[in-house]
């Protein structure tokens, strides 16, 4: 699960980088004769991603349970290393929460409904506790 998240953030960071630098995010097999300066013409046909050599810092990404930021090192047009600059600080908690990490769920503002209903579901009124407490208080008050 962690690996999937890691890969996702790497991809997100690269996409963000590409958008910021006005270059297309090249994630499909591409024709090396098209595209100009970003392509390394020595790359074999059908390679998935080709990049300019260098060290690139991705944007900070909000991973719901913390901030993730990576730095990618490109050598020979390929990713040679990835360095974590920021990780969610409490890794134990991270493990616990990633169990429940899901696609973002839909939200809405609650709205009063006027339709007739047969039954209502709401949180219980613990009236028993009230009765208990009141009767013990009244016991003390007895003459």
């Amino acid at each position, binding site marked *: 699960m962690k690996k999937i998240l890691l890969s996702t953030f790497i991809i997100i960071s690269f996409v963000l980088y590409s958008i910021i630098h006005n270059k297309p995010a090249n994630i499909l097999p591409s024709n090396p004769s098209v595209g100009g300066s970003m392509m390394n013409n020595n790359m074999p046909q059908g390679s998935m991603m080709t990049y300019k050599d260098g060290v690139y810092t991705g944007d900070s990404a909000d991973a719901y349970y913390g901030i993730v930021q990576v730095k990618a090192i490109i050598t020979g047009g390929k990713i040679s290393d990835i360095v974590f600059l920021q990780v969610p600080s409490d890794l134990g908690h991270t493990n616990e929460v990633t169990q429940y990490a899901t696609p973002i769920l839909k939200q809405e503002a*609650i709205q*009063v409904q006027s339709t007739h209903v047969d039954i209502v579901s709401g949180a*219980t009124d613990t009236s028993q506790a009230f009765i208990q407490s009141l009767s013990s208080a009244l016991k003390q008050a007895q003459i």
Partner: protein
Amino acid sequence: MKKTWLQMGMPITLEIVDKNSSENDFLLVKSYFSYIDKTFSTYKKNSEISKINSGKLNKENYSSDMKKIFKIAEETKKITDGYFDIRKNSFLDPSGIVKGWAIYNASKILKKRGFKNFYIDIGGDIEVVGKNNSKKWKIGIRNPFNRGENIKILSLSNNGVATSGTSIRGQHIYNPHQPESTIKDVISLTVIGPNIYEADRFATAAFAMGKSGINFIEKFEGFEGYMIDSNGIATFTSNFGKFVD
């Protein structure tokens, strides 16, 4: 026939739509809940659970229903990573699981007697069976900010619905992972499940998880949830819409 009465410290409503119901059927359900109260009420000094809590009963003398409840509590604790826990410090309180389980058992009693269309509601935890004169049962989710209003209408048949939440008298859900904290942010969590026994235990556990509780419900096939936060914003599971009227 429909009756409402007070028992186990809560309002109970039983409505049987089938034509052949009688007083006896209602009495049967009442006496079952009386037994449940006598066994599991932590407010009764001489209940079995109170005797266990005061050290007056040994494990080998536990009733078979008590053993069953403890077993269910242990299983639920595992599935929910400890968020469902009947042990509060050194005190055992299984009420978070007994209510739904008792309603479910009562519904089985009525089904055995041949009834196919009825509902049982104990303080907002509901088991609906069959239909209400050929129409699915219409259930409102109470507005946690205004008791007189509903903020969602559900259309259900053969399901259980439970709502965990804070009451105006204060927080009554206990988070076993942070015993000192009170549950903030989430005001109300409604869970729909295949029956009230399942819905109840998951609603209790998920509520204790705070805002990630709704993600926990999302994980489970056959369960849908509707969570309301302190700002009046609801978050709901992917297939919750199929239960909305």
